[in-house]
């Protein structure tokens, strides 16, 4: 069996929480090792910024 899966099932979860922070707080209350990630959506350029870039290329 995959080691990480075996570790999960035999020793319990150790969690990287990506998203809703409340879930990390609930896990910490149960004394589960947990890291909250500061996840951000992939950057999308604003219309203005992309227009400026296009102008610069010209």
């Amino acid at each position, binding site marked *: 069996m995959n080691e990480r899966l075996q*570790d999960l*099932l035999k020793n319990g979860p150790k969690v990287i929480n*990506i998203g809703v922070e*409340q*879930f990390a707080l609930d896990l910490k209350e149960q004394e589960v090792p947990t890291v909250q*990630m500061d996840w951000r959506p992939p950057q999308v350029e*604003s219309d203005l910024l992309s227009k400026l870039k296009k102008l610069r290329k010209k």
Partner: protein
Amino acid sequence: MQRLEVMPRTYYDSITLMRVAKEITSMEGIENASLSMGTEANLRILAAAGFDLSGINVTPNDLVIAVSGEDAVLDEALSKAKEYLANPPWKKEGGKSESYKPRSLDGAISVLPEANIAMISVAGRYAGDVALDCLHRGLNVMLYSDNVPLEKEIEIKKLAREKGLFVMGPDCGTAIVRGVAMGMANICPTGPVSIVAAAGTGLQEVHVQLAKRGVGTLHGIGTGGRDVRAEVGGIMVEMATERLLEDDEVEVLVVIGKPPAPEVEKKILERISRGDKPAVLGFIGGESRGDRDGVYICTELEETAAVAAALAKGEDVAEARKELDSAEESLRELAGKHGPRKGWLRGLYSGGTLCYEAQVIAKELLGPIHSNTPLKKDLKLEDSLTSVEHTIVDFGEDEFTQGRLHPMIDVSLRAGRFVEEAKDPGVGVILFDVVIGYGCNPDPARELAEGVLEAKAVAGDRIAFVASICGTEADPQNAARQRSILEDAGVLVCESNARAARLASYLLKG
């Protein structure tokens, strides 16, 4: 009057945004408040709500705060919103967030190198790719997010199978791993039973029903409801079943869900029949009947838990089923005492699987049940806000949750609907679920009981209210306290969802 403010390159998760919006909306003089990321879909919702978006330049990376109401309070509302974002008032004392939060997955792994699972609850359009990243780094995944495309789910699960890792979800709200409650889950003892669940609130109900019988659960592996559909082919149900059958600590295996695709059901049956431990299959309203070779077939959640508990305790399964029959007899008596009631049944649910089970039971006793998630397509409600004859509504469906908190967190929509239903002179019984545990509303019974009392002020004693509480005394909300709040408001509270659906039906059937 209205005011819009754009916070460039600012991100908060949707639950935080919706909670802040709810706080701001409840301020005196505020009509509407919305906090959302500047995606096209969100901008369309804002425009439809009457906000003037002309001249604003936003990207999906920007946060948009929009408030409308009396002019004098709008500035205060905007600054309150920002204050709540920075310092959420609902955060428990001692539950302070960590100061250092890694921005990248690699950063998070370097902080917790022993991490063995990622819990993902970002917007569905990103969640699939985040899950793939986690799998590539050797992490198991619990994917809470919904709206992950089916093709993406298949891609993720195939990769997970290749790597020998679990992917619980997408749309997996509940999991239990070595007794730890992940997501929306209850505090129950750890013990000899393990559950594979293609049904979120179904897992919560079986977990709680086992605890009520003094039996603990080691693992509750959610797979997401679509896993048992033909397109996904039950990849995770099969994998989780396999792993738990091999696990020496698991004495009784339970597999639950709505009825799977026939080929998936066949695969699961074959696999558990070859196993060397007793297994209980609980496909709600499923066609399969009859126990065989250590495999016990059930069609309801409480029945599934009762049979599994009997097996775990070395008791007679037939006896456990007999006890459920006698419980049914007492429900009939109770219905005789409080009924008969005339008219229609209206079920207002927060748990999808519980809603499904209630429809299966009520249909048998009362006939066709209309719903936004009907058992048969032709019974689909034209408008989820307007009930027709016997109706059971799932408030956890998309039409209620887009831009709103899930009904297990925000119960106000259902409490308000009690009053609307009470105005319909044809209604005789209102049935509902109260799901508690981590991740759920901190005191749902209080607001629901207020709704019941308001409804009673409209309808007098014409309508009987019936509910069940999915939770335990150890949960933060305390099931016993929730029960007494509901009972004080005159609600008939049953020991399980199946019993509540039966009592509600018997009250009308006479």
